[in-house]
């Protein structure tokens, strides 16, 4: 059985969405997408369709697998990788990985990044065999819309899009691909809050406000107690958006603000592992 590798740019968004959803039916976290969600994802996370492979049967053109490659500066990011159930163990996964590596080298990338569900040990083993190393453990948290029982302390000011982007530009720590400055610059609704507490604690939260949820939180404590700072901002946030569902993706497992999330009713949905492959030559 021969495989052919095509560029995703040869297909419509509708076709790509259908391909992607076909590969996810038996996943633990299937995350299927509508056409609109897929289009937003490609836009916000700088997916380069020209460099993203679609694998088909060489003779029949039956669809076997898909992968998408984000490109920013000298980094590439592997996402939406999947092979249909019927065509697994036939080399489609390896063909997609090779296409990613070839594309990354072609554009002079210094590293390729990906995230994988923590419980998916076979996938992590496969990526390790392909030269990836585990770098970070990431949490995905959720919260149902409930009005908080308390009011926040401190002086809180809104950060509108421009101010929120400026805050994120000053962020001193690394961010994952989906929460990086470029993702927020691409996103349509991005804002935040700044807080000053009586004891001098101060800091900010930036987040995306989507039509049906608030997502992609990043906290930064400039001074003082991170849990106190985050708890008061979250109280304010959930009073403002008390009917909105919330989820926070890719928080670092050692993020000092985490206890505040749990205080406000967030729970852990699942964990991801970030893996990175560096190109030395």
């Amino acid at each position, binding site marked *: 059985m021969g495989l052919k590798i095509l560029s995703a740019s040869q297909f419509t968004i509708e076709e790509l*969405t259908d391909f992607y*959803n076909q590969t*996810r*039916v038996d*996943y*633990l*976290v*299937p*995350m*299927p*997408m*509508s056409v*609109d*969600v897929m289009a937003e994802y490609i836009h916000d996370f700088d997916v380069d369709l020209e460099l993203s492979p679609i694998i088909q049967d060489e003779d029949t053109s039956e669809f076997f697998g898909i992968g998408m490659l984000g490109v920013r500066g000298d980094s590439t990011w592997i996402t939406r990788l999947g092979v249909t159930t019927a065509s697994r163990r036939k080399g489609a996964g390896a063909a997609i990985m090779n296409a990613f590596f070839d594309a990354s080298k072609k554009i002079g990338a210094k590293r390729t990044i990906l995230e994988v569900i923590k*419980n998916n040990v076979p996938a992590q083993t496969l990526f390790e065999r392909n030269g990836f190393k585990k770098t970070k453990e990431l949490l995905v948290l*959720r*919260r*149902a*819309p409930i009005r908080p029982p308390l009011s926040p302390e401190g002086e809180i000011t809104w950060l509108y899009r421009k101010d929120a982007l400026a805050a994120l530009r000053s962020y001193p720590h690394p961010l994952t691909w989906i929460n990086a400055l470029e993702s927020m610059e691409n996103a349509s609704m991005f804002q935040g809050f700044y807080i000053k507490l009586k004891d001098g604690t101060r800091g900010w939260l930036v987040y995306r406000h989507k039509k*049906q*949820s608030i997502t992609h939180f990043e906290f930064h404590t400039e001074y003082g107690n991170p849990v106190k700072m985050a708890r008061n901002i979250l109280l304010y946030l959930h009073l403002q958006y008390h*009917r909105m*569902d919330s989820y926070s993706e890719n928080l670092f497992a050692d993020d000092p603000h985490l206890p505040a999330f749990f205080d406000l*009713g967030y*729970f*852990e*949905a*699942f964990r991801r592992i970030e893996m990175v492959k560096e190109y030395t030559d």
Partner: protein
Amino acid sequence: MAKILLIEDIADNASLVKRAVKAKGFDFIWAKNATEGIKIALEEIPDIILLDLGLPDVDGQTLSTWIREEKTLWEIPIIVMTAWPEATAQQTVKAYQLDGYLSKPFNLKKFWEIIDTHVKA
């Protein structure tokens, strides 16, 4: 005749549920995404909603909050269908004030145990 609304994007899973509930004489309605799900729920007022958490347009958790906000729907039992580990499924049910969960892959015995708890045929 009790009416079951299934909100699930995968046709094979929907066929499986349809066969099971039709065999017992229930009315079966299928919506393949969240947008269609809320619309059909409001039109049909089902006796129970079976809700897949991984939907393509809006995920099941968020959809459940929309359903709970609708006065004509808020008392309808919602059972989520998920492949999540048990602890995560339980936390989701508790946090979103849902009525139970069914683990995937589909187990007919457990399916009827939970349906019979909430619906009379």
